[in-house]
């Protein structure tokens, strides 16, 4: 009897917490037309622009308490493009993204905290690429309006952390990434 009473109280508390967070965090939907993910790969002789055409974003936002928010990005690697057709061909192969074997790149936030300045935020999470998960911190700026949230992240990653080491020494290990997400409220 005593045990049943405890279970009942625990269920009530859990339900209240779940309902509470559901109310506080708002589900946002991606505006695919206005969102983009691009990257710049560099080498001593020059650089190339590229990006991904297809991706999904699942976002929950609590505008009062950032730590209650979450962000998940799923990129379709086969949608990769670049400013050179032959380079696109090469990037899709096992030297780089191996899109047949690893069709997705995933980022899942584990912690979201306020950034250094106004209208900035830091997404800390796991980025899974080439079947390897690495923790990354993505700094981003945001613009909030009544109808949407615009996130702009401009950062660099070390591709070799995911085992993408082809051309090391000839092609820069650091790749600049710019992601712009317009999320409708």
């Amino acid at each position, binding site marked *: 009897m005593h045990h049943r009473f405890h279970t009942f109280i625990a269920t009530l508390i859990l339900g209240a917490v779940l309902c509470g967070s559901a109310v506080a965090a708002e589900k946002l939907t991606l505006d695919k037309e206005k969102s983009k993910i691009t990257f710049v790969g560099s080498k001593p002789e020059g650089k190339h622009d590229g990006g991904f055409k297809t991706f999904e974003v699942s976002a929950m936002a609590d505008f009062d308490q950032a730590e209650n928010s979450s962000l998940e990005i799923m990129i379709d690697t086969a949608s990769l493009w670049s400013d050179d057709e*032959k380079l*696109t*061909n*090469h990037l899709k*192969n*096992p*030297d780089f993204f191996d899109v*047949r*074997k690893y069709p997705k790149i995933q980022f899942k936030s584990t912690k979201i905290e306020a950034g250094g300045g106004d209208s900035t935020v830091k997404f800390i999470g796991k980025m899974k690429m080439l079947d390897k998960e690495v923790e990354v911190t993505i700094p981003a700026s945001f613009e909030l309006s009544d109808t949407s949230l615009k996130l702009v992240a401009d950062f660099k990653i070390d591709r070799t952390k995911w085992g993408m080491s*082809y051309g090391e020494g000839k092609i820069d290990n650091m790749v600049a990434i710019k992601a712009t997400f317009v999320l409708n409220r």
Partner: protein
Amino acid sequence: METAILLWSVAGPGVVCICAAVLALWVARDQNGRGTSEDRWAGPLAAVLVVCGWMAAIAVPLIGRQKISWWPAEAWQQVVWPIGLVGVLLALCAPHHTARSGEEAGRERSRGEPAGPGSPTLAWLHRDQWFLGGLASLLVGMLAMPTGDGWGDLLPWHRGWLVAVVGCGLVNAWIMQQVALSGGERWVLWIALAGLGGPTILAATAYGGLAEWCLGAIAATLMLAIFALIVPRSGCWSALFPAAFFAVAATASGRFYTYEDHPLWLYCLILLLPTGVSLVALLLGGQRLATQVVASALTAAGLLAGIAYRLLLAGQE
């Protein structure tokens, strides 16, 4: 060129091949170092040593650059085993002229004199060379193409490419052997070398790892081709068997790893380039050696230039 590529894909395979060629020469020669051994098995053994050396040489870039284990993850790397098998079988069963040069044997055949093997076992091996090689080549065709969930959309290509790999591999190997046995054993490896050019260019347009491997095969074959030119009766021509199957397997892999739509005729040209060059060499068999070699070289250069133009330059602004 990057130092690591130079080391693992050029120098490494070259050195391994030279060691194998010297060892094979030592086996094939008599104890006094004069002429070739009278032992009928010395030729086949030397040929197998050359093929094993060639296979070890092309394993160098895989080990050094791709960090492969004994059974690699990628299909194009796994194919190293069946290529070795088919190469060893064809080389073991090929007619070898251990007691006289290929040129002499060619002259004997042109006079209608059979080049007998001198041993019932060798006779059996010679007779069934293409049957055994054909069976083994099925494994090359089976493993040359990638499979798995991500490749489902390209599954309909598999049957056609299996036929292409097995058929073109056997035809190329057979016709190059005819060139070797018709007095071209010292320079036939240059035809095999030309055959590796197309797949290397195809791979270089899409997949660096595969291209580095092809470069390793080119370095290995080049070293043996030079060795065969310098040292008469070296038996190095046996490397044409694994080289022929390597070329077709690499073409198939290159096709699957490119996202560009190249025309069918281009793939046919890449696959059958050794046959085209060998036909020229055989058709000019009655001419002077220099005429035969120059015409073959010009044919190979012309075909390779066409392939390179279509793969690298055509369609670009």
